């Protein structure tokens, strides 16, 4: 910031240009140093540790992907960050939890087993119901959220809907706090899909557990993403969504109901968030009122990482963030408490070095 700069405003970015490489070099040096220590000097982890971390990263990454798609869809259409999106996931988790609880409570005694409950008698139906209800409830909340908190603010300056979204996030978190109390609850899975069980993979004569819940999560989320891609690419609904994302006025002139399309977008993102929530519950067990906050922020990171507004980017971003978060603490040899720090650090680094994301649209810079 010398006097020369005042006369030539083009040079305004110079300071950033100096700081960014220094910052980047520092981060890279830190990462390389830690990797060197962990892999070469200590070298105490065998391949089975990395494989199991990779698997758990993929599973959690699949959940992040589903949530990140919701962020990306809404951002693509309204250019706003739906801050309450993580809370939709929380709503889905709770809905699925109650379905499972009900299924565990209903008795369907048979001659062979008088204590048999509905969840164990019909596990497929139970899981299916949990997903359906979780998705539908989350979608309904998303629909009303848009209608109540965002629609009246359409066209207002950018920060106003964001603040409204923060408010909505608070409302949802606290409603669930007041309704369901702050206690931690555990998902009661059917026996067929109980947590911890899984296939054993033998690497170096040491077993690596591939949990059934994890495989289920991964497969189902891939299926959901393929369905979503099909909808967005090939159906009328998807075409209208893309048209509205491109230009609302022209889309309206072409006979597309803009408000309805925006509602549909929120419903779809709610469906995905609800599914992600039930998966989270089945795999990670715990349900509480702020369960959606940290995954929400991480999924947002994933969406930014992949290039916000870009559906494929959100999918890849979610997987990458999941794996980095899972492998990162061990690979860098730092405490597991700091895994959230790694996710936030990635967010900040991506926005500093490549705001457009890996596949992305250039939206993070000053101009749209």
């Amino acid at each position, binding site marked *: 910031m010398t006097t020369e700069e005042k006369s030539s405003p083009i040079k305004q970015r110079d300071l950033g240009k100096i700081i960014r490489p220094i910052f980047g070099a520092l981060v890279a040096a830190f990462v390389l140093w830690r990797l060197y220590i962990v892999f070469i000097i200590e070298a105490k982890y065998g391949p089975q540790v990395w494989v199991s971390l990779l698997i758990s990263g993929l599973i959690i990454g699949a959940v992040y992907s589903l949530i990140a798609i919701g962020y990306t869809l809404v951002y693509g259409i309204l250019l706003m960050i739906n801050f309450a999106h993580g809370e939709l996931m929380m709503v889905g988790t709770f809905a699925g939890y109650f379905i499972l609880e009900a299924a565990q409570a209903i008795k369907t005694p048979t001659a062979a087993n008088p204590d048999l409950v509905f969840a164990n008698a019909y596990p497929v139906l139970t899981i299916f119901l949990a997903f359906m209800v979780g998705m539908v409830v989350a979608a309904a909340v998303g629909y009303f959220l848009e209608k109540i908190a965002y629609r009246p*603010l359409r066209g207002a300056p950018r920060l106003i809907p964001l603040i409204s979204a923060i408010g909505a996030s608070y409302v949802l978190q606290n409603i669930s706090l007041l309704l369901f109390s702050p206690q931690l609850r555990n998902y009661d899975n059917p026996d067929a899909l109980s947590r911890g069980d899984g296939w054993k993979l033998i690497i170096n004569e040491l077993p690596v557990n591939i949990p059934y819940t994890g495989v289920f999560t991964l497969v189902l989320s891939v299926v959901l993403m393929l369905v979503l891609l099909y909808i967005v690419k090939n159906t009328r609904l998807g075409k209208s969504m893309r048209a509205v994302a491109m230009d609302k006025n022209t889309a309206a002139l072409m006979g597309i109901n803009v408000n309805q399309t925006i509602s549909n977008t929120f419903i779809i993102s709610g469906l995905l968030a609800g599914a992600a929530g039930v998966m989270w519950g089945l795999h990670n067990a715990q349900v509480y009122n702020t369960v959606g906050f940290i995954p929400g922020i991480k999924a947002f990171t994933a969406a930014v990482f992949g290039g916000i507004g870009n559906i494929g980017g959100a999918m890849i971003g979610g997987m990458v963030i999941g794996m980095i978060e899972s492998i990162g603490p061990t690979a860098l040899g730092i405490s597991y408490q700091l895994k959230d720090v790694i996710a936030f650090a990635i967010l900040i680094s991506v926005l500093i070095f490549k705001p457009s994301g890996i596949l992305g649209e250039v939206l993070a810079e000053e101009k749209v």
Partner: protein
Amino acid sequence: MKNRQNQNRDMLQKGVVFAIIIIFIMAIGFHEIAASLTSRIFNVDVRRGSIAEVRFMMVFFGLYAFLTGWSNSGEEGSPAKKILHGLIVSVIAGLIVVLFDLILLFLTRNEIDIRAYLTAFSIESMNYFLFNKNQFGLLYHFGFFTVFGFAGCALKVLLNSASAQNIKERISNFFKNTLNKINGAMPPFLPKYGKYILLLLVIAAAIILPRTWGSYINFVVGLVGLYVIAGIGLNIIVGLSGQLVLGYAAFFAMGAYSVALLNAPEPHNIMLGFWPSIIIAIFMAILAGLLLGIPLMGLRGDYLAIVTLGFGEIIRILLKSDLLVDLTGGPRGINDIHGPTLFGRPFSSDIDFVYIIFACIALTIFVYNRLQNSRTGRAWLSIKEDAIAAQATGVNLRRYKLLALCIGAAFAGLVGGISAARNQFTGPNDHSLLVSMNVLSLVIVGGVNSIPGIILGAFALKGLPEILREVQTYRQLAFGILLIVMMIMRPKGLWPASRPEYEQYEDSNASVKNPRREKK
């Protein structure tokens, strides 16, 4: 015909909404709190841990039903039709609540306790909601909605009729005339020096009043004062330069930990004293602002918001982790922070802190006003209104944005330092996201760029919940609802800034707006 169908649908919708609010109030257990708040209005004290008498809940629900009728009387047609409209809405709401009551009745009759799933649905609470009257409770609910709903809409229609309007006008004219007469009779020097006299009065009040308040009031006033300083500081970033920062608590943490580490015996035992360390606290906060700001100032608003949120969380997680346990005390925080001394005597009772905080508020307001009316303030405003145009006229965007962030951070450092010394404790959870959100919402609720608004907002969001102890549990829910409602109804805040704002609606897509908004 179609219009009539629409009207019917409208009535049904409104009835459902009002009924859902009642059901929701029951589901979060607010009806008990509402009853005890109502009893307070009638000056009846409710002991801690017990619930108010059932008649107070009757009053509450009566008022609610009155409101239902009042806000739903029809807009067109003859008076009878308008009243009928409101009455139908109330009756629909009443019927839905009765359906809900039937479920409750079933649960209470069979003594099914579903508290494990829904905390508010204890047998006592459900009974209380039914006015402790079992099945007659349903009739009470329905009756309230019918009678008071009718009263509400009838009263509103009556007040809006032509003769009532006439009377209203006369009364307001009378008041205006008397006010003019009083103004005319005032001595001429008062308007000229009124400002200074008022200032003197405020200073005198600020010196005398804390001595007369009890220590509890002083505590609350100090808390509100701290939030006022923080609000003004954040307003420099959010209101003047138009950047949304969600990690403001990170700067508090810098200030609080600076003062704490330099004044507590536990981790380092430096004992520098409060006054030098508060200066260091401010500089540490500015340093954090620089470190965060330099690489990120090019980002657009909502991205900056999320990144600062991430930054705040990183600071909190780092403070909480075992990594820095030797340096900062880890999750336990730092205890026993020594307060300030003045002229060799300790200056750290509640009253003393109120004085310090008042002085800091005065300083903050002075700095804020000087900044707002300066070249810098105008540059910020131009950046906020249109960054590209500002750049074209020669405003250095990065430098001014960075300046705003650093000045805002400095005030946060000051607040963090004072509050650490005041509480004699600071820990990672004092600097959570919630604190950032509180400060942001008080600025927005009070009114961006308006100092009276910020003071009002700080009192409403921090002071009122301290005084109304009962609603503590519901405070955050109220926050959230308040944020949404304020954004929709009064985006400029409770006490909007007097300076005109040239607000612009964005890009070409702006014309597809909600019709409700266009009407205004």
